[in-house]
């Protein structure tokens, strides 16, 4: 009995004292910026589309992510905002647990059984996703792909995504330009790349090589690629090992994975220096934004994840209302990318949404034919 | 002269440091039924293992049809025209009788596929010969034990083998079944098949045997023709030493009752078992394989679910849910019937001894070394045990020292009641004696000992009373004074 008492006492003491040692007021998390309505930003949404609730049309839409990944987080808010703006039911937003087409297919099958008539998806697998897309389209379900493109040719209506190759090429060129501006004529680049299973990785690798192959970039070489660093553990392990071993030999780092950019940003913030490396991240994780703010990272390539959700639902609504895609409309619709640097930081959240609103305000006219009747 | 089909020459085998077979030589002629009677199940099992190719003899030769052969694997045994009927069924439980019968028969299959019709016809025919009234489609797991054995016999018949070895140690068959077997054996003998029956009792199959070998402690001490067979003579042959050995031990007995059991029953085995145990008394329970004698011990120790019955310790009613409960009440059980019941391998002798008493020698769940050492020292003194290096893993000790370590663990718990299951199993004579002396010294100190054993030898040496067990209950009780008599010996030995 005595022992139990002593034990309980010890635990109590621990419980009381331990937290007292640490600073403990929780800091409120900077949540995804509160979406502003289109009017706030001064964008006119096409009245026809917003108010055009077609008689008898169903608006059962779903957004399916490619897998569990922080990049998708703003999609939900974008999609919800779009549904609010358009006055349609809030879409189902769901995700397979792994980047696995089979898993995504199972989820889509379930959604279809439940009567979904429009899906906006990031195919878990660019190639294998196509089979499912064909089946869905064959059934008369509208499919738009968002964020990641399926391999072409594809039966999806269109793909609204960042041109990952161009984005990376832009980042790589920006790093080289910066190095040149610093007066260097040669330099070694490091590529922190995403999962090898991701087909976008191959595109990005190709894009970097293309940029480096340009005659004006002679002298700049790709020193190494750290692959499969789009999960926290391998990213942490590889980046800290890289920092310990050859950071002094590296002049520029281009990140093409959400997580590795975040870990790189965190590491730089922690070290309080960029070790003379010009680094450009990707996406807008808190650590990366902080690193840019602190001036350690030159910038980050952003694509509007929020817009993915918004545009997806908007397009599905158009299709459900009977709009058809123009035959001459491109399959890839570039959602745009831009290099977010220190200067652009304050207006970032706003600009991101504005981009989406700007896009949708012209989308119907640009890419779609209105319903025949 | 009939042809000799099987001959063993000077086979020796040591297992666990114990010589289980000492210069065993025997032979078998065609059409002959021979019984090998022995007191050690282990020795008999080794002979089965020998033919099965799972035990390799240390020395000696095996001849079949006059040719020396090596039996290195079960497959060799198959090739050597020997069929073995194991005491524990080697039928595959979830196959049907027919599937079991034809598991290995090439000529009942076409390529990879089975000829079901042909099999069925043969199976029905065979079951008729065997006098088994079962369907060939019955699952093997639904058979009774003796039926399983008969099916195994059927497998042997199917083989048309020249030699059949039957392991009959510790199996209880009723008269009807014995008759059935005997009939089949007679039939087989007419077909010139040689049959070797290994048995641990004198009754069964004696009438069908032409000859009988008598084995004691691993060596063959007699080879009798059935005509010369007189039970008394055999018993004398086996029991001769027991009479002389037991006299040296002082027996102490008081009448203070320690443990009383009333109407103990379990789901599967025990029926209404009642007995009592006095302070300082050694009581043995013996019975044949499957009689339930082991289950008594386990039930008392809280390892078998009891359905009914009361247990009184020092006249107070107690309930024992599990072993740690029992140990708290100073009832300790040591079991050596199977190897895995014994010791904690990988752990040292010291750790083995103190495992049951960790609660008492630790503070806040931290073992206090000085207390542990003190406990060890006390126990060593008690047992006059001398293990020089008690940090070595238990496997490093000799078998008898391993036993002593187990006993030391029991003693460290200060037991009032000590239940021992086959405490000298697998030991050599000298070691057996050491262990039994220890038991007597325990009883001198007032520990009540319940000795559950199938070894006549040790029972006769140390027990005050012997209970005979069969079919899950006590069927007879013999006091020590009476054990001397010839009749009691007869009863005892017929049970064993």
């Amino acid at each position: 009995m005595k022992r139990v008492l002593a034990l309980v006492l010890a635990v109590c003491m621990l419980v009381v004292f331990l937290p007292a040692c640490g600073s403990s007021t929780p800091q409120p998390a900077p949540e995804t910026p509160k979406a502003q309505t289109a009017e706030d930003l001064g964008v006119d949404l096409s009245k026809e589309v917003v108010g055009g609730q077609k008689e008898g049309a169903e608006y059962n839409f779903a957004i399916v992510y490619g897998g569990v990944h922080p990049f998708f987080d703003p999609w939900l808010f974008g999609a919800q905002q779009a549904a609010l703006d358009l006055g349609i039911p809030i879409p189902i937003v769901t995700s397979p647990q792994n980047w696995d087409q089979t898993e995504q297919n199972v989820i889509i099958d379930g959604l279809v059984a439940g009567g979904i008539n429009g899906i906006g998806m990031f195919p878990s697998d660019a190639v294998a996703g196509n089979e499912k897309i064909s089946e869905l389209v064959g059934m008369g379900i509208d499919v738009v792909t968002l964020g990641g493109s399926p391999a072409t040719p594809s039966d999806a209506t269109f793909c609204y995504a960042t041109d990952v190759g161009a984005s990376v090429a832009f980042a790589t060129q920006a790093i080289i330009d910066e190095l040149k501006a610093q007066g260097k004529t040669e330099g070694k680049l490091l590529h922190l790349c995403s999962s090898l299973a991701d087909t976008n990785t191959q595109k990005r690798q190709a894009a970097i090589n293309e940029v480096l192959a340009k005659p004006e970039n002679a002298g700049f070489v790709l020193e190494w690629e750290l692959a499969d660093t789009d999960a926290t553990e391998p990213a942490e392990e590889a980046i800290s090992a890289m920092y310990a071993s050859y950071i002094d030999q590296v002049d520029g780092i281009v990140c093409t994975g959400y997580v590795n950019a975040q870990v790189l940003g965190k590491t730089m913030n922690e070290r309080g220096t960029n070790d003379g490396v010009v680094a450009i991240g990707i996406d807008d994780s808190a650590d990366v934004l902080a690193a840019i703010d602190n001036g350690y990272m030159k910038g980050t390539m952003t694509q509007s994840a929020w817009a993915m959700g918004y545009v997806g639902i908007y397009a599905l609504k158009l299709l459900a209302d009977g709009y058809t895609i123009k035959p001459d409309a491109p399959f890839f619709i570039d959602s745009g990318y831009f290099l977010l640097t220190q200067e652009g930081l304050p207006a970032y959240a706003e600009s991101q949404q504005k981009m989406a609103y700007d896009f949708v305000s012209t989308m119907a006219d640009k890419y779609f034919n209105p319903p025949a009747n | 002269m009939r042809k000799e089909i099987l001959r063993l020459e000077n086979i020796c085998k040591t297992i666990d440091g114990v010589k289980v077979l000492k210069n065993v030589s025997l032979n078998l002629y065609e059409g002959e039924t021979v019984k090998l009677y022995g007191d050690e199940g282990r020795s008999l099992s080794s002979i089965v293992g020998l033919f099965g190719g799972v035990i390799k003899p240390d020395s000696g030769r095996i001849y079949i049809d006059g040719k020396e052969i090596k039996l290195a694997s079960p497959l060799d045994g198959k090739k050597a025209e020997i069929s073995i009927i194991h005491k524990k069924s080697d039928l595959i439980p979830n196959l049907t009788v027919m599937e079991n019968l034809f598991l290995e028969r090439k000529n009942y299959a076409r390529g990879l596929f089975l000829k079901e019709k042909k099999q069925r016809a043969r199976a029905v025919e065979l079951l008729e010969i065997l006098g088994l009234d079962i369907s060939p489609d019955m699952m093997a797991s639904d058979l009774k034990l003796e039926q399983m054995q008969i099916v195994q016999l059927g497998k042997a018949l199917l083989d048309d083998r020249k030699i059949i070895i039957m392991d009959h140690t510790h199996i209880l068959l009723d008269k009807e079944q014995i008759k059935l077997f005997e009939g089949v054996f007679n039939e087989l003998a007419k077909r010139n098949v040689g049959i070797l029956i290994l048995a641990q009792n004198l009754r069964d199959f004696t009438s069908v045997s032409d000859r009988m070998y008598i084995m004691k402690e691993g060596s063959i001490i007699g080879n009798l023709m059935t005509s010369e067979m007189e039970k008394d003579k055999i018993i004398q042959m086996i029991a001769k030493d027991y009479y002389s050995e037991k006299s040296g031990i002082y027996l102490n007995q008081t009448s203070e009752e320690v443990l009383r059991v009333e109407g103990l029953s379990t789901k599967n085995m025990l029926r209404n078992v009642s007995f009592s145990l006095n302070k300082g008394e050694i009581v043995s329970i013996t019975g044949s394989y499957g009689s339930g004698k082991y289950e008594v011990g386990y039930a008392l120790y809280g390892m078998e679910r009891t359905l009914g019955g009361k247990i009184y310790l020092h006249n107070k009613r107690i309930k024992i849910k599990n072993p740690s409960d029992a140990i708290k009440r100073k009832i300790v059980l040591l079991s050596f019937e199977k190897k895995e019941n014994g010791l904690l391998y990988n752990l040292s002798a010291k750790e083995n001894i103190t495992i049951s008493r960790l609660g008492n020698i630790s503070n806040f769940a931290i073992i206090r070394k000085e207390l542990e050492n003190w406990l060890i020292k006390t126990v060593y003194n008690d047992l006059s045990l001398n293990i020089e290096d008690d940090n070595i893993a238990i496997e490093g000790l000799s078998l008898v020292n391993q036993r002593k370590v187990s006993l030391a663990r029991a003693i460290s718990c200060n037991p009032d009641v000590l239940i021992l299951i086959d405490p000298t199993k697998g030991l050599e004579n000298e070691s057996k004696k050491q262990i039994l002396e220890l038991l007597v010294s325990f009883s001198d100190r007032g520990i009540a000992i319940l000795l559950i054993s199938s070894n006549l030898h040790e029972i006769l040496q140390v027990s005050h009373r012997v209970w005979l067990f069969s079919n899950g209950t006590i069927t007879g009780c013999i006091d020590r004074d009476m054990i001397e008599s010839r009749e009691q010996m007869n009863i005892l030995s017929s049970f064993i």
Partner: protein
Amino acid sequence: MIKKGLVNFVKNDLASISVVLIVLLTFVITKSNPSRLSFTMVSLSKDIAIFTIVGMAQMATLAVGQFNLAVGAMGGVAGMVCGYLINIPYEGSMNVDTYAQAEIGLALPWYVGVIAALIIGFIVGAIQGGMIVKTKINPFIITLALISVLHGLNMAVTRNIYFRNLPEVFKAINKNTIPATTTPDGGQATTYGVPVMFIVTLVVMVVVWMLYNRTILGRKMLATGVNTRAADFAGINSGRYITLAHGISGMLCALAGVLTVSKLGAAQTSIGDNWMLYSFASAILGGTLLNGGKVSIFGTMIGAGIMMVVNTVLTLLKISAFSHQIFIGALLLIAFMLNKGREALIRQQERAAVKVQDDVQSGGSKNEEFA
């Protein structure tokens, strides 16, 4: 009362899990949009087809009292081999649109690829079985390490390439149904048939059933599984049959891998990544005993069916996909409990039949020498 009900449930296990499946299917049918029903059924039947084979691959090893964690890795390797053999290499320069095209491939007839994949699967499985038998290392560790080795090998050799220019005949395994699905111009399909893939699985099930019920090999594998020692006594070379069982497991994995390639329209290294849990769950739910010796082929299909349909049911119930895994885990636990009930039942039968369970006297020597 409840206990009795449970005992009855376990006793008639095949019937009872079928009932569960039927209940789930009924839910899907009533809840889902009528116009989508046939599509849903076709999709489900394809998934069930593949995971039945995966479950049988696990079942083959469970039958000999072992297990195979590397089902997915084996399927992945075989799928890539098949893809390489039948891929029609892409010619011309790579650009953004063709990035996922493989420039290599032998463009052999589709059946050559399938047969080669099956052979590779068998060999890989047999190597695994051989390693387990020869080294006597815990099968868990061996198969766990082999996941990494096989998957790593797959990555290292193929550099994560996609083979997607596959012959149309091969893709037809996924697309075609019997009778053929007819789709009037622009409209919805009017008649749906049974997918070819499902028929392939039915054929494989019959073959596997024959293997276990009508051939010596199957008998001996089951005998090995229920009691290796007894099998040894019966003169069965248990090591050989354990190896064979792993080989068969590998072969079935390969088949599932090939079917997945057809279903996804591309061979890629990620095939099989999520098979492990499903393989155990469907085999055990179906009534294959973990301790070996009993297989249930039809049951495996029902088990796979339950695992697949549950996903659809959860989605229909609008339960967040993030929580699906909780239900899958719970299903595996239930399967485990069922298995326990079944084993207890068998033990009970054995006990009732055999007066004496424990093997008493020869314990010492047997544990030494016979083990």
